[in-house]
């Protein structure tokens, strides 16, 4: 029999960006809030102090800040007829844990989506015709528009401390930044920082081809800054230990830095750590949830009643907990019915070009998560899908994040993998190269989904979640389109040599090497409870006191990085909860 705690107004599962924002905002309104985090507590000091943070082995290779998969993981297969196998070691995506979630150690690249991406199916049907959408492609409209989200993007950028140059203020093209970005009501709260030599060369080459390079927007302070909650950031020093590391310099926009210290000032905001939520419990009325059951650090099972539950963990964990709690009908790819697990998608990230220069020195260790130039000339709303044969957009970029030698030591094609030739090459080429990346949308399909694995269990005996995913022709064409642009630019750089990693025809998904942690979908928002789990306010269609913010809500993946849009959606949801739901709890749609 579980121990029963005193009822709270709001229980939050997971204390990353979304959980922290909800916690602070509802605590400010006077509600009793409890956040339950499965991982450890983490604070800027002492967890990320200098010099112990500057440790590639501990953080970048042994992945100190990530979830230990011995607790729980997923299984992966490429098709419905395969047997899924466990993701035993972290590979193509890194599952975070602990206070701050992945927001504690991300690269801080903070983007908005293009307006057309929020009504993608309607846009494609209207602009190019329904016939270009493959029969098994399950893309949908989100149920929310860019114009509705714009104020919340703006506020999240102020909270996270985003630096960058605005390209489009209320329709006025500024001549700076990204000329193809959606309109914004304000400039970024801080001006952009400088980029190192690599970015200047890339920008020159891209301009010579008629493209429009600009510096990345990122939640990395470029000057002293105080956010709307009174939280203070200091300018980044380009330490070169950003992604996978907590920030040693008070410069990274993280939940700790920007939100949690403010939340902790409220007595009615509490959080507990090392406590894993096993399931969300349903009420007898069939219309609400009654609270959550979790295991505390002593191994006791505890029931925490609540008026309202916000499921605010990582995308995969949100979907997993909905499946474990039987909240919503699991998706069935045979019938295309059911909503939990539907429309899982990844991010196109395979495709790179590395240029080697004998006479250039890039000091690669001078880096930030977004020491980067990019171009958005191939944005979702600028590509003729009918002509190119794929749906989506792709960004080409040139980032220098770190020179950590195990992670960041590309060598020319043909270099021996080990031995004398390898040793000579690392001396010849370390710091003498720059790399182009790409980052593109990923569509959703009937046969890309999440459900429960029939064989493998987690340490609490619950089934692991099973991912069924493979690249589709659309993904590969989009990636190849991006690679062709990369090759054009890399040739214009006139290097001594270059490597190209281009996605091959029919190339399958490989979960072994790191690509990106931008996994999305599985509990998507939408206009219709038949094909979405959440309504436009991220409220569960069937259980109105359950809200599920996160990238799980994306019906298909965006061209750009997810966190900016996750932040905007969270503030959009919080506004609906504060202004509408709590006064009269009910389904908002």
């Amino acid at each position, binding site marked *: 029999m579980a121990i029963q705690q005193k009822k709270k107004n709001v229980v939050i599962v997971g204390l990353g960006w979304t959980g922290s924002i909800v916690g602070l905002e509802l605590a400010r309104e006077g509600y009793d809030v409890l956040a339950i985090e499965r991982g450890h507590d983490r604070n800027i000091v002492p967890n990320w102090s200098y010099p112990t943070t500057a440790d590639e082995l501990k953080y970048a290779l042994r992945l100190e800040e990530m979830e230990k998969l011995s607790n729980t993981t997923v299984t992966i297969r490429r098709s419905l007829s395969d047997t899924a196998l466990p993701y035993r070691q972290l590979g193509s995506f890194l599952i975070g844990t602990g206070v701050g979630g992945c927001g504690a150690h991300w690269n801080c690249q903070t983007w908005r989506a293009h307006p057309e991406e929020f009504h993608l199916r309607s846009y494609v049907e209207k602009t190019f015709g329904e016939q270009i959408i493959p029969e098994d492609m399950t893309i949908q409209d989100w149920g929310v528009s860019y114009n509705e989200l714009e104020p919340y993007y703006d506020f999240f950028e102020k909270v996270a401390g985003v630096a960058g140059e605005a390209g489009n203020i209320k329709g006025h093209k500024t001549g700076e930044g990204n000329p193809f970005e959606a309109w914004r009501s304000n400039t970024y709260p801080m001006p952009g920082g400088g980029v190192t030599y690599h970015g200047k060369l890339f920008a020159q080459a891209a301009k010579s081809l008629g493209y429009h390079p600009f510096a990345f927007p990122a939640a990395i302070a470029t000057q002293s800054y105080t956010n709307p909650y009174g939280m203070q950031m200091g300018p980044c020093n380009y330490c070169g230990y950003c992604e996978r590391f907590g920030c040693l310099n008070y410069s990274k926009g993280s939940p700790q830095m920007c939100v949690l210290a403010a939340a902790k000032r409220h007595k009615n905001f509490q959080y507990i750590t090392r406590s894993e939520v096993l399931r969300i419990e349903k009420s007898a009325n069939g219309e609400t949830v009654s609270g959550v059951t979790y295991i505390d650090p002593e191994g006791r099972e505890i029931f925490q009643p609540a008026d309202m539950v916000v499921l605010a963990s990582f995308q995969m964990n949100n979907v997993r907990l909905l499946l474990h709690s039987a909240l919503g009908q699991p998706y069935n790819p045979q019938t295309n019915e059911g909503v939990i697990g539907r429309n899982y998608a990844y991010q196109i990230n395979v495709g790179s070009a590395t240029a080697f220069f004998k006479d250039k020195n890039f000091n690669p260790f001078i880096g930030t998560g977004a020491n980067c130039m990019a171009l958005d000339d191939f944005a979702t709303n600028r590509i003729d899908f009918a002509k190119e044969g794929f749906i989506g957009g792709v960004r080409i970029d040139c980032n220098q994040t770190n020179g950590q030698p195990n992670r960041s030591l590309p060598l020319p094609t043909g270099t021996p993998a080990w031995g004398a030739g390898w040793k000579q090459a690392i*001396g010849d080429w370390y710091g003498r190269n720059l790399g182009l990346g790409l980052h593109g949308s990923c569509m959703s399909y009937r046969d890309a989904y999440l459900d429960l694995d029939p064989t493998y269990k987690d340490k609490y005996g619950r089934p692991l979640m099973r991912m069924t995913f493979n690249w589709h022709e659309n993904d590969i064409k989009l990636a190849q389109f991006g690679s062709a642009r990369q090759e054009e630019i890399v040739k214009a750089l006139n290097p001594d040599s270059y490597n190209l990693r281009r996605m091959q025809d029919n190339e399958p*998904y490989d979960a072994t090497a790191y690509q990106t942690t931008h996994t999305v979908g599985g509990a998507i928002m939408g206009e219709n409870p038949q094909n979405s789990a959440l309504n436009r306010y991220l409220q569960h269609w069937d259980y109105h006191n359950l809200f599920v913010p996160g990238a799980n809500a994306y019906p298909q993946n965006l061209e750009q990085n997810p966190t900016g849009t996750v932040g905007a959606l969270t503030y959009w949801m919080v506004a609906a909860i504060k202004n509408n739901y709590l006064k009269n709890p009910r389904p908002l749609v």
Partner: protein
Amino acid sequence: MFYKTDSFQEKTGLLVTEKILSVIKSGVTRRHLLIGAGACAASALSARHIAAQPAGPVPLEHYQRVYFNGQEWAFIMAAVARLIPSDGRGPGAIEARVPVFIDRQMITPWARGEDWYHQAPFNYDAPHYTGYQGRYSPAEAYRIAIPAIDKWAQENYGNIFARLSAARQDAVLEQVQKDGVPIDELRSGDFFSFLWQNTKEGYFADPKYGGNYDMVAWVYIGFPGARASFLDWVDKDNVRYRLGPVSIDGQRA
């Protein structure tokens, strides 16, 4: 040239090159010796740095192993000396004391597989797109694979790995890398991945983990280690950063 060494050879039966021998016997790197020889001409700072490390590290032959047995140690010493050889420009794995790093790593949660999902059923021979599916942790993989590779080397080349010529050692490592050496319930390629990963880690990781002795690998490639503050250099296009590395413990090189 190859030499049979006295006590080291008695214990391990190893054939080692002249350069490795000098490192094993003296316990200091060639670079360290050169710095020592020029100490009177060096700055006061460098002199203090050397004075702070009077005796150099424990010679590899006297190093107290925390995990590997004698056969394993002989294999590791010989294998890393082929993966990152001592000849030519830059330090080899032996000068960087990579074997010490690997030995110490073997008792960490990572090498014990404690961070990994470790529930059955295992399907080690499955397609590799979900990552290593073996039952064995990295530390166990070393324990299982090394005698199997020695046995295979004995059968195919007439001697255990550590006693083969450099060229034959390279040939064996190539077979190991391409799954060409039969090991029960473990692909030899998976073992090679651990070995090469750990060798590179020991070469490049902070010296506090036992490898990258005196930051030799960082000096070689030009990585400043834990300096982590470069705002003043962001605008210096194509100008090599001028400060040498520091370690987490505050050593400079």
